[in-house]
């Protein structure tokens, strides 16, 4: 039997999360939305979608690091319109799977594809001898390439 994946969206924009949750709800019945960045709330999910900007505070890297500490095999995705070098370094170090721009609706589709790839890789895994997603995800080079493109764009600005 296929595992049902638990998904957490952390974002302080309730209108955004309301609609995003509705789009993902049919696929992820065990979906939770929170606008709190408290560490205790982030335990027990398979997939995390984290906004980088909470009321002007850049929390994405800190949240991703906390998630990785508590859920080593989970999929971590960051929503951010900008990608500073320091943020990128921290995200790479904690094996964040991707950074997507909230303002670009096409990137929502790309995010969905990344989530599906993760779920497929999870379903293919044997129940024992689990290895982390970061080691198995075949598109990791694509992900770094995408990051580099974004970084180049940021440097030009």
């Amino acid at each position, binding site marked *: 039997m296929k595992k049902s994946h638990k998904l957490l969206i952390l974002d302080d924009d309730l209108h*955004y999360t309301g609609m995003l949750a509705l789009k993902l*709800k049919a696929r992820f019945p065990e979906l939770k939305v929170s606008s709190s960045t408290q560490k205790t709330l982030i335990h027990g999910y398979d997939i995390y979608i984290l906004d980088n900007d909470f009321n002007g505070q850049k929390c994405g890297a800190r949240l991703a690091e906390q998630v990785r500490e508590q859920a080593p095999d989970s999929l971590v995705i960051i929503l951010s319109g900008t990608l500073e070098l320091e943020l990128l370094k921290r995200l790479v170090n904690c094996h964040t799977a991707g950074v997507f721009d*909230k303002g670009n609706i096409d990137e929502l589709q790309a995010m969905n594809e990344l989530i599906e790839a993760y779920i497929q890789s999870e379903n293919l895994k044997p129940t024992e001898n689990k290895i982390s997603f970061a080691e198995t995800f075949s598109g990791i080079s694509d992900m770094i390439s995408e990051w580099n493109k974004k970084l180049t764009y940021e440097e030009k600005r």
Partner: protein
Amino acid sequence: MSITGKRILIVEDTPSISLFLAANLKSEGANVTIAETTEQALVLYEDSLSSRFPFELLLVDLNLPDSDGTSVLKKVKTAKHQATCIAMSADSSETAKKKALKAGAVQFIEKPFDISALISTLKERLHERDIVNVHSSKHDIQAETWELQQSYTAHLRELSNKLNHTIPYNRLCSLLHQLRGSAALYGYSKLSGFASRCSEQLREIGPTATQNTRKLLKEKIDAVMASAVK
């Protein structure tokens, strides 16, 4: 779990409590109605059953002027569309709790309550409700989408009104960030793009551009809303 767009009925006869609750739930995006008596609550609830969007959650005070709040809980329990009921009371005795739970409440909350904890409870209860209703029909998804879109349109109107007044630089930066994401998701791509450009310009120029950007953003939101009406 978000409560954005959720229809909530507050049954409470003390205005300072009901208005405080309503303001906090509305700020979370909920669609809130207040009833001061059990009679009003039952009429509103029954009316909602024949509407497109029945109430999903009732927050019921047990000590109401015309009768015991448990009569509302019992009525909801037997309805075809069962809303989630949470009982509230200053009487925290075991007898009061048991009576509320037996009548149909899923949870008992003691007064005075902590508003953050109360909102978290509501979110959790609505989340559980959504898991139960996971096999929702396509119609339900369309109805929820429509409801969220209405809520977002109201949010944009409210935002436009707020932009009539001066706003701090950091608040405007944060607001533009949110707007570029949410507007794109709700299909207002031009507004999202505009917010993105404003955000970049504001960061480049700095706080001196705050009030000019605020005015431009208000004009853009008004124009988008006007064209949406057409």
